[in-house]
Each structure stands twice: as structure tokens, then as C-alpha cells.
């Protein structure tokens, strides 16, 4: 790890000012990606601005059909939240299966989506549930938020404040885990909503994306057999030592079918 200046602001406004004034600043939420990267000397920010001291960024509030989760809420808190378990059990289950207990006790929703790892779990939920990402400047539709591998719609120094998740009629997330990292080789989140079926896929491509073709197939009827004819495009899939593009495309279908079946 190289030397850096550490800051722990007490408000979002203060954090925004610190990051704006830093030569090469980084916001740290749970630090589950940034800190290992810094330890490996692969990142050398001049300033690290720790969002952990900002009370307004944490917490879970259910208001009608909207579940609002603060950006600094940990995966463990989401997994254990009776409100989330009641409103969107698939989201609580997803959070409870990220990484291991150490990761879940430190890692946060805001950190996960702002980092946008191609194999992260939360982005699939944000997209498929039609969530809205709220920042210190604006609101961004979940499906517009994830723009590429480790790329998001966030502007320079923009800070995620919370995510609003609309309550679906039913939802399920099926993850096929990498045996080493336990990140998603392929993860598929499907939701049955009043506005129709929604689906998102993570792990398979450069970043999580809305799966329009899965949604179209499910228009005819929200059942696993509706996806019998669905084939994910092999040429768009990631390929690495853990899974070929062909295998990932196959898994997208299998996980989608299982997720749909689990919604029943």
C-alpha cells in the first residue's frame, strides 16, 4: 500500500467537497474492492475519503411500495432486515449470499454498485427490480446506471446516497458461483411486476444488463417453460479460465429458468 491521506467526513456535502479538492481521491464505502487493490499496490489514491462516518447514508426505510436502502448499508444488514425480507425476499437472499461473512459485514450496497464489478450481484437486482439510484446530485434509473466494465453513469465525484427498490409481485435471483471467488459466473435476477416481467443478467457480459429477450419470452406466460426456446447470444458472453462463452450462455438460460420457477 502506498501512502495516502485519510478523511472521515460527517456529511455527504463534506465528502463531496473533499473528493472535489483531492488530487486523485477515492471514496471508500466498505472497501472490499478498493482496499485489496491498494494493498496489491494496483491503486494509489492521494486521498481516501471514508463514507463510514456519514449517518445519513445508512439505513433501510419502507415507504408504501418502495424499499429505500442507504448506500452505506451493509450486505449483512440487508440480509437480516425484516423489512427487506418481507418486501423483497429475493433481495435479502441475494445480499445474504454475497462473498463471505467478513465481506457481508463490511461491503455495502453503494460500494457494490458504484464499483460495478462485472460479476457483482447487486447490479442485477437494481436493474431487474427497476430501482432508482439516488445520488447527491440527481436520480438515475437503475437500468441506465451500469454502463460498462467497472463503469457507471456516475459523474466525477458524484456520490451514491441510496437506492429505491420498488416492491415486485415476486422475484428471485439465481447465481451460479465461481468455485474460487464465489462471485457470479452467471447470475440472473427475474421479477414479476405489475408492469410485466423484468430480468437482468450479471457475470455473463462486461457488466450487468437488462435481459430484454428473457422478458419478451416471459410476456407469454411467467413460467420456466416460456424460456425453452430462449438462447443467450454466445458472442456477447465473457470467456475466461472459469467458464467459456458457450457455457455462460447455457448457464444464463438455466439460471433464468430456475429463477422463474422459484418465483412461483
Amino acid at each position, binding site marked *: 500500500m502506498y501512502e495516502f491521506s485519510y478523511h472521515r467526513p460527517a456529511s455527504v456535502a463534506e465528502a463531496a467537497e473533499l473528493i472535489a479538492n483531492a488530487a486523485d481521491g477515492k471514496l471508500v464505502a466498505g472497501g472490499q474492492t478498493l482496499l485489496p487493490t491498494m494493498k496489491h499496490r494496483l491503486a494509489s489514491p492521494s486521498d481516501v475519503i471514508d463514507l463510514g462516518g456519514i449517518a445519513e447514508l445508512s439505513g433501510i426505510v419502507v415507504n408504501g411500495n418502495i424499499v429505500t436502502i442507504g448506500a452505506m448499508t451493509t450486505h449483512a444488514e440487508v440480509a437480516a432486515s425484516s423489512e427487506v425480507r418481507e418486501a423483497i425476499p429475493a433481495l435479502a437472499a441475494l445480499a445474504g449470499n454475497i462473498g463471505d461473512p467478513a465481506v457481508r459485514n463490511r461491503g455495502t450496497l453503494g460500494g457494490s454498485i458504484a464499483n460495478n464489478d462485472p460479476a457483482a450481484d447487486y447490479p442485477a437486482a437494481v436493474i431487474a427490480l427497476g430501482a432508482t439510484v439516488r445520488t447527491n446530485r440527481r436520480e438515475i434509473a437503475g437500468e441506465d446506471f451500469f454502463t460498462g466494465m467497472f463503469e457507471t453513469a456516475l459523474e466525477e465525484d458524484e456520490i451514491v446516497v441510496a437506492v429505491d427498490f420498488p416492491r415486485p409481485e415476486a422475484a428471485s435471483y439465481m447465481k451460479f458461483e*465461481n*468455485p474460487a471467488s464465489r462471485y457470479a459466473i452467471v447470475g440472473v435476477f427475474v421479477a414479476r411486476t405489475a408492469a410485466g416481467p423484468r430480468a437482468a443478467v450479471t457475470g455473463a457480459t462486461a457488466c450487468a444488463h437488462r435481459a430484454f429477450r428473457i422478458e419478451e419470452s416471459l410476456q407469454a406466460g411467467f413460467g420456466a417453460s416460456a424460456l425453452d426456446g430462449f438462447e443467450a447470444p454466445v458472442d456477447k458472453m465473457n470467456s475466461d479460465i472459469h467458464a467459456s462463452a458457450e*457455457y455462460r450462455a447455457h448457464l444464463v438460460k438455466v439460471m433464468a429458468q430456475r429463477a422463474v420457477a422459484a418465483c412461483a
Partner: protein
Amino acid sequence: MQENGIGASVRRKEDQRFLLGKGRYTDDINVEGQTYACFVRSPHAHAEIEGIDASAATAAPGVVAVLTGDDLAADGIGPLICGVTVTSDDGQPHRAPAHPALAQGKVNYVGDHVAIVIAESLTQARDAAELVEVNYRPLPAVASTADAANDGQQQIHEEAPNNICFNWPFGDKAANDEAFAGAHKVSSIDLVNNRMVTNPMEPRAALGEYNSGTEEITLHLTTQNPHVHRLVLAAFNQLAPEHKLRVVGPDVGGGFGAKIFIYAEELVVGWACRKVNRPVKWTADRTEAFLSDAHGRDHVTRAEMALDENGKFLAMRVLTTANLGAYLSTFATMVPSYLYAFLFAGQYTTPLIYSEVKAVFTNTSPVDASRGAGRPEATYLLERLVDVCAADMGLDPAEIRRRNFIPKDAFPYQTPVVQCYDSGDYEAALDQAMELADYAGFDARAEEARGRGKLRGIGLSSYVEACGIAPSAAVGQLGGGVGLWESAQVRFNPTGNVQVFTGTHSHGQGHETTFAQLVCDQLGVPFENIEVIHGDTAKTQFGMGTYGSRSLAVGGVAIAKACDKLIAKGKKIAAHAMEAAEGDIEFAGGNYTVAGTDKAMNIAEVAFNAYVPHNYPEGVEPGFDENAFFDPMNFSFPAGTHICEVEVDPATGEVEIVDYTAVDDFGKLVNPMIVEGQVHGGIVHGIGQALLEGCHYDKDGQLVTASYMDYAMPRADNAPEFKIDYAPTDPPHNPLGVKGCGEAGAIGAPPAIINAIANAIGAKHVEMPATPETVWRACQSAN
């Protein structure tokens, strides 16, 4: 039997300090004036070094020294050695290119050591290491085991044409060919034994201290064999004379073979601490461990079996290419030769066995012994091949094994491949395992699983292995540079408690408990009055260390022999004290008695008399402290049958091990709880190899599985509850009747698991690691 003696599941003494956080590992030790080292390592798999500019690094804050291969050579510090000679098919010894501890003009794998940077803090050392400018001229890399010796391949070492270290034919080829020509059927299999990174939990570390007053170097190391480290560093690397070098292996957090070897970093730290006249500490981070620990396995093999019409094995042929990596590690040559081909008979009466091993160099980390070392590779090919034979002959896998087992009345059994097995009852272990696993009920379970969309399979593995390499004379005949005896010293203190010094080294095995049980049992001294001491060349007489499941079978017997000497000496002392003839003295349960009387004297009193010899027999030396060396007559041969049951999800290729049974013959068990732990750990190691662990270099020789994000270690949820039982036999040449248990699981498990997967999906073979994609593809082809 004494309470806490042989056969008791005594809780481990050492766990008190481990559970209280009082363990003391090399990196925990800090000394005054200590500096920190960081190694500059090659980012290239293969390159010439055109120049090293260390000026910026040397001038960096806190830097004490930057040392390179030139400095090492100028001080006459020798290259690392390989301690076992294998004769190649041209009659010449294996090719042994120099293995400098710091590169001399060339690097041969990613992670190869180029320079050491020593600074006042670790951060300063790391910062400065980034400032060492090494001008590399990259060369094409050789990364593939199978292709390393192909014509036109890039040459790695001048001394090794075609990148071949040795070609080693073994057996009577003509007789073998003849048996194959006349066979009813020939079964064959091509397989890869996947390369593994051994991954002990504690990374390697070294702390070197030089005392200019005594001219002594003290090296604390993560070592499984401190005296062997001292011997090699003194005798072959010219680090210091043996009597001026102290090697300490304090608490060591797992070895599994990877800490047997004498590594470049250890030699360099020892040399550098004297050169800079400051203590130097180096601890590997996990990336360094992946890159620079010796790896294991990595074979490409074709195996064939000739059968008669009844499924009897007539002859076997094995052709293997074994990857030794970029340089020869300390025992590298021995693993794919003697520890491998001498096991090809397995549990069977196969009369003719012929093999050829081609050992090759590649631009990868050196490969050496890893839990099992050669025996997992042998067992895997044999037990996979036997299942192929069974399928080809239309026989149940259990039945073909039965037809070929060495019968229990044939022991000691001379195999056609050097080894003479001590004792065994292979059919008894098979029967017991089949009973425990409810082999007969498998079809019903498979039917039930089909209803859930799962393919259920069952697989057997009947293994034999060879532990406690011996005797020393045979080791020498085979080209080994050391003797493989073990030593012990058992010392009574005047107050009656006992210190046991062993030349073995415990790095998780529980020796402090097991050996104390032996002494408790034999001398009748209370368990809590016995302390086992190991791991310091300044404390222990000498020893060969711990590997190859040798500690109890060899080291334990040395302890027992030292106890015998104490008992015998004590008879003279007790006879004198009790005014009886020595011939009338009997010893049992810690007490000397005079036969036919009620006169008795505890061994603690005898010990006191020996140290305070006021009333003492003439001609008997004072003191109650004996040592012994034990050189066994033979290896020991643990054996058993493992049965694995899996369920495969055909839609994803995911494999779940749903049941696992192990019935082993380890001879007599001293501490059944510790043995069970070793069996669990060994099986989990085997699960890792079979399902998860694939060490993967790309074609440019970059290690793409250099972290736990990409290299899958087995975790608790990868293993079921194990069903463990024993089918012991009595090895006649081992005075304690013990065999060794540390590696059996890692040897027995991989073929049992792969046999179960092949059975589940109806495929002839599935390569390890049987990852979901590998199994899914096998399901596609099987359909």
C-alpha cells in the same frame, strides 16, 4: 494400557497455545535491529537480463542494501541443489542446470528471484524494490507439460537438450510387450494429473540473524526439517559451517510438503544478514506463495492394462511426461520416479509392469513433493484405469478389484516394481467400506436421485501407498543424498518429568500429543509430565524432519527405542536400590518391582537416584537420559478402500459429494482423534484436486491462478460428513505396529471422486479438476 497412552483420543496439548493465540510463528518473532526484505521477482516467464540498475533503489529512504546475483556469486554462495539422482536412459545422471538463488543473467519463470532489497521497514523495502530497474530481453516461454520436449521448442537450459531432465524407463519392456500382444483385451486411458499449488495457511518466511561475536548465523524458517535445511545450507550452499549455523522451525502453519525444500529466499536471507550485519526478515505474501512455492503433480499420462478373459491383470504400461518446472527443487527428481513408478502394482498382482517417465523443464515454478508426492499420481492413473478395465470387461468395479487383489496370505508381498509390501488385507477393507457405504443400496439411491433430476454415481478407489521412506542404504542405492533414519532423545529431569527431543517436526500433525502418549504408555509417566521438543537444531540432536507420513513410523520408533534404553538402565539402578538381582527386576506401568515380592520403585525415583547417585550401582553412569536412532528395514504400506458417492446436476455440471467412506489400514492407531483429523484433511485435499484446484499457466508462462479469486481451495461446504473406519493389519517390521496416515486421504480420494463422476454421467473419463464446465461438457458428449 495407560490412561492417555496408546489408543486414547487425547486432546491435543498444542491446541492450548494455538487457541489462546500464543503460537509463535516465524513472522511473529521480532529482534532488535531487524530489517525487512523484499525480493525483486521476474515478471517474465523466460528472459535474459541485460542489466540491473539498483542505484535509485539503493538511494531510496531507509534502504540498507540491494543485493543481486553478482553479489551472491562474488561471495561464493552456491546454487540450490537437488538431492536425488535419477539415471537417464543414456546412462547419464539427470540433467541438473544450475539453480542460482538470485538470477545470474537469466530468469526462467514468473517469480524467479532477481534481487533482494533490505530496508528499515517493509514498506520502504517494497517501495525501493519498485525502483530496481531490470532490463529484460524476453524469450519465448515453454509452459505446456505435454509439448515441452517437442522438436523446435524454445530451449530453457543449455544442459538439458529438448528441455528433458531425464528419460527413465523402468521394467522389462520386451516381456511387457509380449504380454500385451497375447492379451484377451487391452484397456487404456489418457489422463492429466493436474498441477496444484500446495497452499499451507502460513506463507513461507525467514528471519536471519548473524552474531559477529560467535560468527554464528541463526535462521528461523518455515521448515518441515530444520536439520536438513542446516545440512544442505552448510554443506552445499556454503552459507556457514554446520556448527555455526542454527536453524529453528518454530510453530509452522502447515507444510504439506511445500516447506521441505531449501528455497532461494532462505539461503539469501541467511547470507544477507551476515553481509549487512543486521537481522533480516522476509515473509511471503500470498501472491509470492503462489508464484514461488514449489508446486505439485503436473503429469500427462497414458496408461494401459493387458487383461485375460477373466479380467485378471496380465501387464501394465505407463507413459508419463512429468513437469519439473524451471529448475530442480530439492527432491524434484524423486517424485515422478521412485515415489511414483514403485507404486504401480497398487493392491494388485499384476505380474509385469513397464513404465517410461520423461521429466521436462518448463518456464514455470519448480515442482516438487506435495502431500502424497508421486503416490497420488500413481494411484490416480491405476484406479482410473481399473475402472476402465471393469467397464471394458463388463464387471463391477468391486469385482474386478477382488479378482486382482494380492491375497492376505501373500504378505510380505514382493511386487514387480521394487517394493515389498509389509502387511495387508485388501479385501477386508473393501468389504468393510462397501458395507459402511451401503454399496448394495446404491441403485435405489440413484433411482431416487433421477427423480430429482440428478445423476448419482458411485466410485471406488483401493489404494496402497508407501510411507516412511527407508532403509537408508536403499535410499543411497537409489541416488538419494541422505539417510532416512530418525533420532530421539528421552531425558528425565531429576524431578521426574520428561523431555522428549525428536528429529521430526510438527507443523499441524499433533506430535506433541502423540509422542507424549507413546512415552506415557511405555514409561508410565503421567501424560502431563511429558514435553515434546522439536524444531531447533540447537536443542535436538539431529533429525530428518517430517514428510512422507514418516514421523510416527520412523520417529516414533526412535522414541520407543530411547525409552527401552532408559528402562534397561533403570533396572540396574532399581536393583541396587532395592537390593535385588537385576534379573529379578520387572518393569510395568512406571514401576520397577522385584519379582515375587511387594518391593516397588517408581521410575521417577529411579531418575532421582540417577541424578543424585548417593546410593548407586558401581559402573553405571549417572544421569537418566538416553538417545536412539532408528533406521527401518522397509517403508510402511498403508492401504485401504475409499468410496465416493456424487450427484451431478446435468444442466450445470455441478458435482456434489453426497457421501464419502474411507476404510484405511494404518496399523495401530496411537491417537484415533488425530488420525481421524488427518484422514479428513487428506480427503479434503483430494477433493480439492479432484473438483477445484487447477493451477493454470497461460501460453506465455503467466500464472493466471495466482490468487484465491481464481484458484479454488476446498472449503467446508465442499465436503460431506465422512464415514471413517479402519481395517488394521500388523506390519511385522515396525516395532510399534504403525504405518502412517498423513497422506492417505490425498492419495485415495481423487480417483474415488472421478470414478464416481464417470459412473454418474456414463463417461469413460473426466479430467481433474472436474469443474462444472468440464463435467457439463462431459455430460454433453456422454449423451
